[in-house]
């Protein structure tokens, strides 16, 4: 049991007649970045809130690094292991950035000798060193988001729970946020992150779980998911006639279907063969004197896999 950073058994949460989270047995290994995806109302936020001890489960048990998680005064050590960033991030508008972080450093019992150094570290990580004396109410949304992340990691948790951390951020702020998550991953933190931006998750995550109607319908490592559910695709471009290229493709038994990529003049080919078969196809096309401008192998992205599973994901 202690091999798992997170292990839940029969975790259930009911609200009136509605079951928000239904008998979930979730297991996440230490050091993983686990992406949680699913349509709105699937139960992601409720699941994360229960894992953070912010919500009491109706039924079921949660173990963090092998120890049972309870919602009372009895587990200060457990609470120090957890960092939770909710989708809304209420802050104290009357405090400065430094005082806010120092307050939480004290709440998490950081030793005075270590506190100042840690505050400098997290401010550098979230790129808010020059805002340390600013009153929080004067910060932009992106800065507030980063400050909240700094608050979440101030006590060096080993498990980070991030609920929609990039919602409402512009592309630059999102990129900054992704960089920070990568640094935290390299530092060895186990991270559970829920997001509707699947391209971000594909870049960051080692495993993915898909939730729908309160159930965890899929939970696997990203390579395994791609292997099982993602088809290999080849993008082709030619200076010659597209019909000749299509004729050549028809002769290859590994080519299933193809479609034109609008406005690019490229062809997307669904290919079932291995790497060697791919190389053989390229050779055959060159030998057929087709003037290829582009030939590269790719695979269906996370969003396509998700949609293929029958879910409607708003991204």
């Amino acid at each position: 049991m202690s091999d798992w950073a997170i292990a839940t058994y029969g975790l259930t949460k009911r609200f009136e007649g509605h079951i928000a989270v239904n008998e979930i047995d979730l297991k996440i290994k230490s050091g993983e970045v686990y992406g949680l995806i699913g349509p709105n109302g699937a139960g992601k936020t409720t699941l994360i809130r229960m894992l953070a001890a912010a919500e009491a489960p109706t039924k079921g048990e949660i173990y963090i690094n092998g120890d049972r998680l309870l919602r009372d005064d009895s587990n200060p050590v457990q609470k120090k292991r957890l960092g939770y960033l909710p989708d809304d991030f209420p802050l104290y508008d009357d405090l400065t950035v430094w005082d806010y972080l120092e307050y939480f450093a004290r709440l998490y019992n950081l030793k005075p000798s270590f506190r100042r150094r840690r505050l400098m570290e997290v401010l550098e990580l979230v790129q808010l060193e020059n805002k340390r004396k600013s009153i929080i109410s004067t910060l932009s949304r992106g800065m507030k988001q980063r400050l909240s992340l700094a608050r979440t990691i101030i006590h060096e948790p080993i498990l980070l729970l991030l609920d929609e951390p990039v919602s409402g951020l512009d592309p630059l702020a999102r990129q900054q946020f992704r960089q920070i998550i990568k640094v935290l991953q390299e530092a060895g933190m186990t991270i559970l992150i829920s997001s509707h931006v699947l391209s971000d998750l594909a870049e960051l995550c080692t495993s993915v779980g898909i939730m729908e109607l309160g159930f965890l319908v899929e939970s696997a490592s990203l390579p395994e998911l791609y292997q099982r559910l993602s088809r290999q695709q080849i993008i082709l471009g030619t200076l010659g006639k597209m019909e000749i290229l299509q004729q050549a493709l028809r002769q290859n038994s590994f080519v299933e279907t193809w479609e034109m990529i609008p406005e690019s003049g490229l062809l997307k080919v669904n290919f079932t063969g291995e790497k060697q078969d791919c190389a053989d196809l390229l050779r055959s096309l060159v030998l057929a004197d087709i003037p290829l401008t582009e030939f590269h192998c790719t695979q269906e992205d996370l969003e396509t896999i998700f949609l293929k599973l029958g879910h409607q994901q708003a991204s």
Partner: protein
Amino acid sequence: MKNIQVFQRSSSLWEKFLDLNPQLFREIKGKLKTRNVVIAAAISVITQFVIGISLLSDLPNPDPQGLLKAQYGPYAMGSGSGNHIAYTKDMLGNWVINWQLLWLDLFIALSIVSIFSLLIVGVYMLIADTVKEDNRGTLNFIRLTPQSAGSVLLGKILGVPILLYIAVFLLSPLHLMAGLGAHIPLALILGFDIVIVASCAFFYSFAMLWSLMNFGLSGFKPWLVSGAMGALLLLLTTATFHHNHLISNTLWDWILLLNPGIVLSYLIEATYLPLNKIDFVSADNLGELLFYGQALWAKASFGIGFILFNFSLWTYWCWSVLKRRFHNPTNTLVSKTQSYWITGWLSVFALGFTLQNYQSYSSATDNFIFLQMCLCILGLALIAALSPHRQALYDWARYRHQNNKDGNILWKELVFGENSPSSVAIAINMAIAITYITPSIFLFLREKDRYIFWGFILSGLSILLYALVAQLVLTLKTRKRSVWAGSSVRGMIVVPPVCLGVADFSPYKAPE
């Protein structure tokens, strides 16, 4: 004026002090700013100035030539009371002034101002701050940290009203000087200060508990309690000033002990000033108050000791309910076990104040009828505090077997379990109170008045019926379940007497 933090430089002693309680650190960082401190200090100084000036205005005007007619005021040394005592002059032509009385009036005025501001403004500040944090969601982050509920709540109580503490602290030098000037022993002044601190501990704990109750009206919460607090203090303080015989030898007297100002009686007595010069309830009258027939308030040490015990006991229970509530804001307000203890202690106190040296048998009966009414109020409060709502009750019914190792033992669940229906627990609470009170009914009341016992049984059963109905209504699917439950119980209380009244039917005459 630049509004900067007062303590910007880190001195190791100050840092160590703030390390003790992170919540206190947050409150100090947020509130202790130059402008705020200057405003608090200015209000304190102006208050002292206004009180001082208004008292000094009662002194006679200077009259070196002896041209003025006779002057009257409360601080003259002649006999009489009120403002109609003529000032006299000594052999050197100076006015003879009762400075001790003036110092005493100053001491009383500063005490009343301190009590009112600490209890009304302090309670308001705490509730407003906690409700704001709860609504904004920041309280949830604090709950997730390793800090204990006690540490966080203590930090709030010490930190949120810190500007008020500064203002009151600035009153204390003049307050102490006035007390010593009025020849009040230092030990009694310190005893009085400790009673004020104990009353703050109780009312502030209650305020925190109130702010964590979920019944909507969040914007109205601070006004409701501080308004009620103000009305109660005004009523009790006015009564202490205008009734020399305040003690009624009923359960009402318990309410008087919630006003820390009542202790001033002992301090005034220690000055040995003639009582006709001071409009305040006398220590002798306070000595008439009995607890299980014992005149505990006849001596200052016992009296102050009991008041401190009273505040400490209820602070303890507020605090234990508060600690549970802080981490489980959606559970019932009190656990079933806590309710049994609280009912037990309330019964002990209420019966103690009910058993007095009665002037007549009828007053003894009246006291027990009043006790019965108080039992009904306790029962209604328990219904609100113990009845779980629909979701919690359904979860308990569905999952109790899986969530709890004792979940299969139904009686244990009903008596001690979390979120189980309240009816059995309320029946036990009523049984605890009635069992404790019953021997006194048969020992102290005449045989023909012992029907009171059946009154208690009827009250207990009525409360049980209300509890069942309220619990049933709380399981309905409608949105405003609490409102419906409250209305149903109110209806059950009001409708029967109204029907009897309309029918002109008096139950005590039936059968005629």
